[in-house]
């Protein structure tokens, strides 16, 4: 059974393009151009994966992620954006999105990312990997949960390779580990990104308002 996918983007032309690309591999159950319609329809249609644009009027992708997660925590989100604003991307991930890719992504890679998100993994584009490395760089403040506030050196290795443009499979080979282990590392980084209250994260994001 193919994966149920829902699309949210205020840019209709882009939306129809993505829809055409994904139509053969997935069951596109619906699409919305605005935040409110998106939240209502996703609650009713219960897709497995939602592709959501970061920048939209009335609160943007974050409003959709937060609105849906409140009632349907099982719906998974992949943020898709033309914006490279670190602040927005990090905010989307912290709101609950499980991945972020830019709109210039190749159709095959996008399909791959959707399958990965559906399987419960995290999807990091090279750019997101760079953001995370940047945000977690520097000295660690003593905090109640240092484990959450710091990346392990293995996690950094994985992120660096992703930032250099390697796919998970290639990362695994370069580090002599299994793809599953790469996925575990990435999911662990995602969890840290979502839960860490490292104050640098906020400061870093606001510092890089426009990237």
């Amino acid at each position, binding site marked *: 059974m193919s994966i149920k996918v829902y699309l949210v983007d205020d840019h209709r032309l882009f939306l129809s393009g993505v829809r055409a690309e994904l139509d053969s591999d997935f069951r596109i159950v619906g699409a919305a151009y605005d935040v409110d319609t998106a939240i209502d329809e996703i609650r009713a249609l219960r897709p497995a994966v939602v592709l959501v644009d970061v920048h939209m009027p009335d609160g943007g992708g974050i409003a959709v992620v937060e609105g849906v997660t409140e009632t349907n925590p099982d719906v998974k989100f992949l943020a898709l954006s033309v914006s490279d604003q670190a602040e927005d991307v990090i905010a989307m991930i912290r709101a609950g999105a499980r991945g972020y890719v830019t709109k*210039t992504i190749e159709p095959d890679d996008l399909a791959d990312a959707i399958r990965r998100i559906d399987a419960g993994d995290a999807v990091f584009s*090279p750019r997101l990997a760079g953001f995370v490395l*940047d945000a977690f760089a520097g000295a660690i403040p003593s905090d109640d949960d240092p484990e959450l506030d710091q990346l392990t050196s293995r996690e950094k290795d994985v992120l660096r390779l992703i*930032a*250099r443009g390697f796919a998970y499979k*290639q990362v695994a080979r370069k580090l002599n580990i299994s793809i599953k282990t790469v996925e575990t590392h990435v999911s662990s980084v995602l969890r840290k990104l979502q839960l860490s209250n490292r104050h640098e994260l906020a400061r870093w994001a606001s510092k890089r308002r*426009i990237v």
Partner: protein
Amino acid sequence: MQPTATAWSLDLHRRRSDRVVAGVAGGIADSLGVRDGYVRAAFVTLLTIWGLGGLLYLLFWLATYEKVEDRPNDPVENIRAIGLGISFTGLLFLLGAVGLWPSAVVVLTAAALSFGTAALTDPSSPGPFAALMNPEVEKVGKARLVLGIGLLAGGIIMFSAAIGQVFELSVVFLAVFLTGLGVFVAFGPWVRRLLGDLSAERSERIRQEERAEVAAHLHDSVLQTLALIQRSDDPQRMAMLARHQESELRDWLYGTAPLDGVDLVSTALKQAAARVESDFQIPIDVVTVGDVAIDERTRALVFAAAEAMVNAAKHSEVDRISLYLEVEGDEVQVYVTDQGRGFDLEQVPSDRKGITESIRARMEKVGGEVAIDSIAGEGTEVMLKLAP
């Protein structure tokens, strides 16, 4: 403006807008169909006759209501204004004849000065420059101008004579001084209007220049790209053009492109990547972590990275190149990665070897390291590193 006869209306009121004291003079002017300036001048003149002007003003104020008019009536009938002027002059001299003038000099000076000023500040006066230069200015306007200047000069001379008598000063000196003052007062509004026109013209010119600059930029960038896209039938190339144009426009709009020279390595690398993108029609994903200022060593790093990108674009036969910059502490690393056909370092054709050697030479000159990792069929990665 087409003259329209204003009917006599004894709708005595006070003006709410465009008033000096309480709108009484304005209201009377509206009723009589003359310029408010002349009515004001009449009140000022009467004020010199034992304060009669003030008393009348008060009476009118009590007897009238405040009218919220759309706008003051536009007085146009010169004949009526002249008639009213003659009547007022008669009234004035009548008051003098019955011995009510406190001093002929004061009353006549006040009358000359106030009516002269009113004539010169009449909005329908042509202005001295226009009257002199432009033969088409209406006769009435010219007459009004001459009358105003004459009255003002007469008033000033009378005033000077009176003051001179009282204080035993040189009448000539006073007259010259006061005439200068009078000219300043009379011509002030026109000078101000002229300066206002100049500054309005200047801001309009600045707006025009800005618009021209925006238009020029859009013409050089977006329009050219759109034209190229229209003529291109290769979707890959179209996407490339659009992508490059988008990033360029974004830089321009949000000011991420430095205006006066590049000062950060990340910016310099992004610009180098953008150039390679447009020269070779290959997208380059740039990811940067940390940043550092441009100096002699990092400049060499940027050039070396640019060459590595050109290399990848020319030889890898891929549709995508990755550029990764990481600055950690004093260490700067750049990776240029492609997943193209790769090559065997031992069997590099000589032309290509030259380029890799020049990357190496650049980096070694500034004490940096180069590592080239290439596997045939899998891709190439060039690592550039600067450590202190």
